[in-house]
């Protein structure tokens, strides 16, 4: 950014330089004020404006800080967005009144097709609230008095929240003491509402409060909320706490369960695939059986002489206490003995899902039986002996 001093009007001619816009923002003092020089020419005494703009080589500190948007600017953006929405609806031949964000996204994708890979770099048309980050407006009135009573702490929203939560805690404890005084106290465990939800993460809390927090602040707040929940008694702060809980999606709903099929004799069975490293396996699990496993036409005792591999095959049944209740026939190819064992295990576990309750499927998922092992062989790199092993280092 090292631009030398630019001065205009070196040749003595009757040119007046007007309209050089110099922004005099107090903080962004990159451009110094222009200097006006009176220059009299011998032939004609004309006031010549000689504008000299100096660009300093300092780093643009103001630009590194967060860009601040005024309230008027945001309002103008919202108005423009609403007008733009109507224009868009007009263009696409849709009803301007019932244009939703999904329609807008579709229209923009149609009008401005982009081949960029990064989704966030493609053209978007969203409400300004979602584009411009939320900022704090000026915090005090005309007389200089701040609006919030905790303004001088620096983190008014966070400390105000702590204050309210602590007040809530005191109220709950007082209520409990009153109940105990009247002997109406009863211990009831009411923690069922909290299953299936998690605490807000620090980023979500920062977004809620529009303030930067430190990790200690966040942990303090969560601890205070847990103290609030820990108080036994009738009036718990659960409604207050629910604002800071988010529901967790149950993962096992995404698990594909194979349908149960029936063969010619009427036996119920289920088929599934599995893979591990470069081994691919397909397993057929019969509902009723005696626990026999056939691999590629051979008995598993002969195909897998090593105990460890057979243990891997038995693990899904052992986990569900169904040893000796199912018959399995599987085919496997590729990989080594351990990889083949792992592939068959995955295939069997997936096939078993169709004979088992949803809760047990969730348990299997949490045990790791239904996840494909992502580990593959790492390539060898040049300059090294293996993937990680370097050549022997010789001092001289």
């Amino acid at each position, binding site marked *: 950014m090292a631009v030398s001093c630019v001065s205009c009007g070196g040749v003595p001619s009757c040119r007046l330089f007007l309209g050089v816009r110099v922004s005099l923002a*107090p903080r962004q003092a990159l451009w110094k004020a222009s200097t006006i020089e009176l220059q009299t020419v011998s032939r004609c005494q004309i006031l010549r404006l000689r504008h000299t703009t100096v660009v300093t080589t300092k780093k643009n500190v103001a630009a590194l800080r967060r860009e601040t948007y005024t309230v008027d600017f945001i309002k103008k953006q919202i108005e423009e967005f609403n007008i733009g929405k109507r224009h868009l609806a007009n263009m696409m031949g849709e009803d301007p009144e019932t244009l939703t964000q999904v329609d807008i996204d579709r229209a923009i994708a149609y009008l401005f097709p982009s081949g960029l890979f990064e989704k966030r770099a493609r053209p978007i048309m969203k409400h300004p609230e979602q584009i411009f980050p939320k900022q704090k407006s*000026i*915090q*005090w009135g*005309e*007389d*200089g*008095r*701040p609006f919030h*009573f*905790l*303004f*001088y*702490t*620096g*983190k008014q929203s966070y*400390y105000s929240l702590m*204050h309210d939560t*602590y*007040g809530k805690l*005191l109220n709950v404890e007082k209520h409990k003491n009153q109940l105990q005084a009247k002997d109406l106290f009863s211990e009831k465990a009411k923690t069922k509402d909290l299953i299936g939800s998690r605490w807000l993460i620090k980023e979500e809390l920062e977004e809620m409060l529009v303030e930067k927090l430190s990790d200690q602040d966040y942990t303090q707040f969560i601890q205070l909320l847990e103290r609030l929940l820990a108080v036994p008694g009738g009036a718990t702060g659960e409604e207050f706490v629910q604002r800071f809980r988010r529901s967790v999606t149950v993962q096992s709903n995404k698990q594909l369960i194979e349908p149960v099929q029936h063969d010619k004799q009427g036996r119920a069975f289920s088929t599934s695939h599995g893979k591990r490293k470069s081994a691919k396996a397909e397993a057929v699990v019969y509902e009723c059986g005696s626990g026999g496993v056939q691999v590629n036409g051979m008995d598993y005792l002969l195909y897998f002489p090593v105990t460890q591999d057979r243990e891997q095959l038995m693990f899904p049944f052992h986990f569900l206490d169904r040893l000796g209740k199912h018959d399995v026939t599987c085919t496997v190819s590729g990989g080594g003995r351990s990889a083949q064992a792992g592939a068959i295990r995955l295939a069997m576990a997936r096939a078993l899902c169709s004979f088992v309750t949803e809760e047990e499927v969730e348990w299997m998922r949490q045990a790791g039986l239904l996840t494909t092992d992502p580990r593959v062989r790492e390539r060898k790199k040049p300059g090294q002996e293996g993937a990680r092993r370097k050549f022997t280092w010789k001092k001289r």
Partner: protein
Amino acid sequence: MAAALPRLLSAGVWPRPLRLHALLRSATPGTARPSGRTLGSAVAPAVSEPEGSNDLQDRILSEPLKHSDFFNVKELFSVRSLFDARVHLGHKAGCRHRFMEPYIFGSRLGQDIIDLEQTAAHLQLALNFTAHVAYRQGIILFVSRHRQFCHLVENTARDCGEYAHTRYFKGGLLTNAPLLLGAGVRLPDLLVFLHTLNNVFEPHVAVRDAAKMNIPTVGVVDTNCNPCLVTYPVPGNDDSPPAVQLFCRLFQTTVNRAKEKRRQVEALYRLQRQEAAGGQAPALPPSPGT
């Protein structure tokens, strides 16, 4: 009170004269308070209101200064009420601070006893000063770093419409306020310390910073505190709940009283100004002591 008179007189004057950011706030000349004749400031903001109201404004501000106890804060407490709230109990003799010796009545079984007659006198001065600052619409900041009473102090501040700081005090909050709190921020005009020490029994940073920024302070100083930098020290117990509750109640009542007084006086003078505009000569009786 004479020592802090210039500061007191410039309390409530906003925007501050002689400050650079006031020049940049070119958008608010009309909201400048018309107090061009205060003693503490050299440059006064341009007065756009008529002469008559300026006289009244001076009247409003100077009238309370002519009385020694304009807000009658003496009636809010007595030595007996201080004793009942256990304000006289200090720490053990080993914790005694050298500069607190003038305020200590004596020592009983190794525990220092604070002289309540001195406490009463200092408390009257402190409450009177607080009332004057509140009357002149100054910003009062209640500071305390005692975890047991943090909630109480915040409630006190909120109930009297002032501000509180009972959390971790960031380094340059007073000395580097434009950076930490935003450009053009107005600093507090009075700091009230319910506890002068912080959690590690060291003097609170705000005591020193307020002295640096020429902000007067009122502080409840216990026998282990340093009263030197506090403008209006009030020797008293800051550890027992009844004592702290009493102090909070006293400050809250004083501030509310002073604000109520200000509202009454302004309403009265507004009425009289209307009467004067109606053609009659304004008769301005001095406002009563209570």
